[in-house]
């Protein structure tokens, strides 16, 4: 039958696509790690960058990546989770709730470069700080916010209503219910959300070029919020765009490999604690 033959052809075709996609993904990873891992010496990972000669490292940039991530989470987690809790537990069906929800969706669609320009306008120009870690972290937290709000709202909504009822019936205030029952139940989902956000923030460059700058301070690790703070991602771009060092390509490849390894590590960090928590909560002892 003709349709049977077509069906078999289609199946082969889709298998082809599936394998092609898998191949692209694997090839990508192999290419980056293959080119870059050989350059990942201790000198490279922890060493100071060079402006003119070869042999520079990315130590300060590595530190800055995590420092900026940490700061941006510090600012965005309270407000992101706060807004998410409000949407899930307090908001009524009215125009104000719709406004909040639409604003969050719009914020989620803003291209990073626009965040970067906004941050530059605010912190570098209007406030006159110049390129600072603080400016970069605050702008980066704008990127984190919509995801945190959405993840918080979704995971809270997934908590069964029976918990809320049981807690209320025992005489708890709303905040007690949220604090002692809802958020602990939603924790695995929240952890996943934060890890997702962290991964994005670590890889971000467009925002930071315009707010935290392309140079690192002379003293590393520098905790000064007003120092400029080039991160790994920014360094990768900068070294290719304007790098004067002769081993720019090797530095770029090493940096890329390092970034991918960090993202891989983060992804592994999601799977394990979330699953552990889920097991503890549902009482399965396997």
């Amino acid at each position, binding site marked *: 039958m003709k349709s049977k033959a077509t069906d078999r052809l289609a199946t082969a075709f889709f298998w082809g696509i599936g394998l092609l996609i898998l191949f692209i993904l694997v090839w990508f990873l192999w290419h980056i790690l293959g080119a870059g891992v050989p350059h990942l010496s201790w000198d490279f990972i922890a060493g100071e960058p060079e402006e003119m000669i070869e042999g520079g490292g990315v130590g300060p940039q590595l530190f800055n990546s995590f420092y900026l991530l940490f700061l941006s989470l510090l600012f965005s987690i309270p407000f992101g989770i706060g807004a998410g809790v409000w949407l899930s537990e307090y908001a*009524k069906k009215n125009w104000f709730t719709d406004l909040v929800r639409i604003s969050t969706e719009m914020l989620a669609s803003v291209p990073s470069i626009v965040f970067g320009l906004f941050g530059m306008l605010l912190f570098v120009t209007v406030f006159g700080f110049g390129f600072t870690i603080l400016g970069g972290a605050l702008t980066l937290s704008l990127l984190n916010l919509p995801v945190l709000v959405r993840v918080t709202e979704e995971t809270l909504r997934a908590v*069964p209503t*029976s*918990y*809320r*009822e*049981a*807690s*209320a*019936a*025992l*005489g*708890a*205030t709303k905040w*007690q219910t949220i604090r*002692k*029952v809802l958020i*602990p*139940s939603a924790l695995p989902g929240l952890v996943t959300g934060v890890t997702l956000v962290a991964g994005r923030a670590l890889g971000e460059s467009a925002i930071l070029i315009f707010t935290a700058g392309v140079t690192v301070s002379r003293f590393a690790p520098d905790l000064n919020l007003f120092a400029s703070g080039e991160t790994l991602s920014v360094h990768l771009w900068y070294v290719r765009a304007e790098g004067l060092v002769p081993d720019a390509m090797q530095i770029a490849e090493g940096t890329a490999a390092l970034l991918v390894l960090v993202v891989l590590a983060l992804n592994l960090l999601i799977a394990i604690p979330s699953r552990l928590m889920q097991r*503890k*909560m*549902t*009482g399965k*002892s396997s």
Partner: protein
Amino acid sequence: MTQATVQETTQATQEKLRVQHLNLFYGDNQALHDINLSVPAGSITAFIGPSGCGKSTLLRTLNRMNDLIPGVKIDGEVLVDNHNIYAPDTDIVHLRKHVGMVFQRPNPFPMSIYDNIAYGPRIHGIKKKRVLDEIVEKSLQQAALWNEVKDRLNKSAMGLSGGQQQRLCIARLLAVDPDVLLMDEPTSALDPISTLKVEELTQELKEKYTIIMVTHNMQQAARISDTTAFFLNGVMVEHGETDRLFTNPTDQRTEDYITGRFG
């Protein structure tokens, strides 16, 4: 058992709870019509009636759980110990400590058995471990669950069977030291053996608490309650001593329901 119950009811004239001219609306839809009811202390009152008759809705007005639903309007009074719980200055959190509720489906928190029971006392400010330990043990004993779980208090409550979970929820409720227990079809999700255990438990608890139970199982109401109220379409059709209501109902509709003509 019947003779003794009748005597006890006539002797225990202290009224614990009273509903006066209560009307309830879900938006424009009226769910309860002019309910008037007096519940004596230390007794078991059963609410019976077909699905949708309003018995659960009425139960939930007694600890203001309907406040959690948007669009509900209440008209009338509910007096607990002579205080109207719908007065504007009522402390709802305090009310729910004294008037507690057990739900149709057991709903333990995803925490250890110990933490489930200790949850109530903790949110009301009790922090000392020694005190909490005592409360947990006492509540589990009262709920006839202590022997079954005393060696695994720190294990998750989700690992218990349905019947055990429901007794856990009862223990959890007892831990906050209420006066009134509201039970919303507490055994409808349980197997017959667990049902029997919960029924026995309820009869033991009658001595210290005032219990109001919604049930769609008439035999259960006849077995354990002192007083029964029959509801239909949001109206309380008849209310009186259980034995009398089941053997000699005054209203034709009650008789029809009891004999199984509908419901």
